[in-house]
């Protein structure tokens, strides 16, 4: 094959897919050959997409079931016949214009599903119990033993116990498990006092029933469980959105690759690529493994790996890394490292390492619990000893007072103080196109003092654009040629020209040089300075393309990646708030310096590799800084994980969106400032909520201490304090 002159845009033929290996044999009545397959479908946006895919499949004779889950974008197909039919069905969906990826059921995704169902079930049971137990309680509270009769009241108490105890045992499990795990690792969290209070409430109420007492507390315990579970479920839902994106990424990495065996091609799963195999890398596709080029000359896009914006040349014998995109001509690559050992996997490993460090972060609620748990438990102990030894009452009565102290201080308001504000804040940010993956992300964001950001695609729009104005005729000619190339500069040229094109012929792409065509019998070239430019023209920092028409002077076109429109003003206002800003890029030093000046950033680093970025962040962290990392590329992913808190634009690749705590949409950079401001406000409100909860305790504890607290007071005080905290949290909605 002659690589110097290749015909352009040879379509990549649809090779034999390998889905038959993934079809699962399922047992159903009456059919021996019943198969099912789950695949990920990309590009589903609306109801029409669901219908198009499902009805296309259902029109097939053998299909018994086809349903697309819109939330997870997974399609489940069931059919009778042979496993090989799977390929036919997948191709049918691909022909409709959707991209299909193999889905490998990971335990991770299954775990999330189970957890959600578990929480939802606990919540449902608690809700049912709360409704029913309150029906009884209203009757008990609003009457006395005289009006109601002792026997009736005890009957009511018994029913309360019958509803309350199973509910606490069933729905309290999320708290019990979490408390147990915390205690096992010698920590305390908010769930410890919650669990203790729930258990003691039940025990004391049982004791009260056994001695025909007047007060039982089952209703309070069940209501508390219900309220807290609502907070827990909301928090979980917010985190789940992000986790779904994560599982998508793993699926994309587990796609197919085409290999050359002798003279035939074969499509195999990426996970089965081995050293020594010859991989065919078509134009526009991403290299899944590390390898060496053995045939072909092309240009590659290194943006994901190094952050470099300018495509690099590649030829026989050059190494090629996983994540690189082939731009110009098909390549044959000899695999040197398996997929799981390649660069992407290295990055994933770095991320895992960083993730472990991050789990050491202590949530504010747990910090509060650390102080709160011993304080409350020792207060109860003091109440017990005080009343028993000094107060001179029976130890049973002293115990009752001690338990009342525990119940009245039960952290209902404290438990709501954090999740309510965080759910409101994430909802508010969501409306602005800022997706916060977990509540504690806002806590961490509020505490930062340094912002480190990537350049390409983060501070800039990541789209190379044509700069300046050119002669319409030259512009039109350049666009006509560029139309036949996938080179990023050509794509930028295409974008800049929206009118009609010249009718050119004999188009040839010369890898590493440019593109050539014939117009009205004259040769025209669009490409590098060396190939068709004016060698004597002054050299600038900017990216350039030269247009040369036979018999006339070459014309030059300049390109640049431009700043996000409000980047400078956002950086300035962040600086005014006392935050330090640093630009950290894998791109060439002079380009980084230029963008840094434009955005008014004083500290900048160029030519950094992913491990260097990671180390730089670690170093800043060791110096005691709290860091927000903003990045979008594969090369930023470890740094995103290493930072205290991270953000990624919505255009970022999946792996970075997965690594980041917050994702922002749109072309503007101001969401960074917006998220920071809201995070600060959220943090203030949380502090106020804690203060309110503590104030409530300061009033309620002495009353409980003196033995004045009845169930009515306990219930009123508890819901009163919770409502107060919720109302205070809603102030977030009022602020702009």
């Amino acid at each position, binding site marked *: 094959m002659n690589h110097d002159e290749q015909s352009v845009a040879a379509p990549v033929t649809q090779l034999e897919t390998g889905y038959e290996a993934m079809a699962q044999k399922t047992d159903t009545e009456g059919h021996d050959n019943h198969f099912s397959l789950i695949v990920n479908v990309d590009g589903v946006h609306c109801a029409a997409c669901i219908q198009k895919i499902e009805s296309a499949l259902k029109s097939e004779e053998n299909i018994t079931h086809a349903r697309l*889950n819109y939330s997870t974008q997974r399609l489940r197909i069931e059919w009778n016949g042979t496993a090989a039919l799977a390929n036919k069905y997948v191709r049918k969906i691909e022909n409709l214009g959707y991209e299909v990826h193999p889905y490998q059921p990971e335990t991770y995704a299954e775990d999330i599903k189970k957890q959600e*169902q578990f929480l939802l079930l606990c919540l449902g049971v608690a809700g049912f119990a709360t409704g029913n137990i309150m*029906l009884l309680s209203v009757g008990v509270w609003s009457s006395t033993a005289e009006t109601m009769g002792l026997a009736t009241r005890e009957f009511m108490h018994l029913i309360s116990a019958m509803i309350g105890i199973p509910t606490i045992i069933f729905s309290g499990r999320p708290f019990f498990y979490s408390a147990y795990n915390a205690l096992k690792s010698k920590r305390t969290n908010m769930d410890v006092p919650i669990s203790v209070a729930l258990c003691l409430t039940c025990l004391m109420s049982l004791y009260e029933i056994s001695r025909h007492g007047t007060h039982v507390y089952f209703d309070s315990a069940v209501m508390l469980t219900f309220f807290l579970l609502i907070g827990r479920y909301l928090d979980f839902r917010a985190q789940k959105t992000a986790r779904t994106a994560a599982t998508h990424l793993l699926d994309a990495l587990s796609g197919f690759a085409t290999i050359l065996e002798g003279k035939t091609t074969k499509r195999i799963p990426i996970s089965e690529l081995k050293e020594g195999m010859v991989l065919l890398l078509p134009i526009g596709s991403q290299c899944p493994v590390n390898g060496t080029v053995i045939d072909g000359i092309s240009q590659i896009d290194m943006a994901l790996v190094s952050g470099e914006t300018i495509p690099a040349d590649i030829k026989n014998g050059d190494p090629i890394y996983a994540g690189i995109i082939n731009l110009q001509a098909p390549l044959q690559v000899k695999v040197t490292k398996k997929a799981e050992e390649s660069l992407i996997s290295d990055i994933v490993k770095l991320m895992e390492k960083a993730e472990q460090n991050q789990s050491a972060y202590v949530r504010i609620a747990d910090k509060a619990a650390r102080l709160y748990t011993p304080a409350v438990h020792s207060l109860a102990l003091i109440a017990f000893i005080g009343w028993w030894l000094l107060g001179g009452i029976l130890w049973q009565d002293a115990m009752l007072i001690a338990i009342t102290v525990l119940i009245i201080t039960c952290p209902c308001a404290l438990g709501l103080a954090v999740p309510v504000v965080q759910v409101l804040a994430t909802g508010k940010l969501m409306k602005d196109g800022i997706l916060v993956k977990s509540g504690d992300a806002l806590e961490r964001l509020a505490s930062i003092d340094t912002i480190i950001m990537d350049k390409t695609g983060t501070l800039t729009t990541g789209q190379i654009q044509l700069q300046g104005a050119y002669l319409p005729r030259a512009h039109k000619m350049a666009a006509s040629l560029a139309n036949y190339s996938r080179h990023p500069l050509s794509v930028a040229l295409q974008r800049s020209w929206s009118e009609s094109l010249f009718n050119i012929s004999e188009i040839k792409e010369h890898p590493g040089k440019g593109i050539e065509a014939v117009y009205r019998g004259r040769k025209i070239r669009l490409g590098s300075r060396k190939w068709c430019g004016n060698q004597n023209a002054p050299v600038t920092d900017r990216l350039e393309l030269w247009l040369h028409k036979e018999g006339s002077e070459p014309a030059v076109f300049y390109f640049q990646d431009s700043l996000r429109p409000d980047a400078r003003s956002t950086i300035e206002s962040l600086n005014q708030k006392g935050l330090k800003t640093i630009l950290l890029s894998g791109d060439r030093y002079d380009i980084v310096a230029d963008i840094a000046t434009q955005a008014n950033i004083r500290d900048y680093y160029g030519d950094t590799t992913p491990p260097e970025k990671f180390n730089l962040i670690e170093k800043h962290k060791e110096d005691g800084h709290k860091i927000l990392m903003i990045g979008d590329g594969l090369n930023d992913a470890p740094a995103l994980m290493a930072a205290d808190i991270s953000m990624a634009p919505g255009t970022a690749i999946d792996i970075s969106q997965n690594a980041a705590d917050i994702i922002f949409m749109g072309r503007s950079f101001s969401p960074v400032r917006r998220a920071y401001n809201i995070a600060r406000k959220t943090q203030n409100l949380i502090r106020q909520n804690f203060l309110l909860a503590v104030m409530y305790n300061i009033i309620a504890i002495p009353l409980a201490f003196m033995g004045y607290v009845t169930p009515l007071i306990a219930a009123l005080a508890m819901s009163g304090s919770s409502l107060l905290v919720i109302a205070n949290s809603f102030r977030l909605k009022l602020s702009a």
Partner: protein
Amino acid sequence: MNILIFLIPLALLLGFAGLAAFIWAIKSGQYEDLDGAARRILIDDDDQTTSER
């Protein structure tokens, strides 16, 4: 007050019926695709029913 012996179990029974329906809904996967359900309502399935099995 004897009426309570009937009324309270009756109230509980109704509650249980609701709870059972909820548990059934979770188990049969109705909470797995909340976004999809919102969009499927827009699908006009007249021509689809013939191929539905």
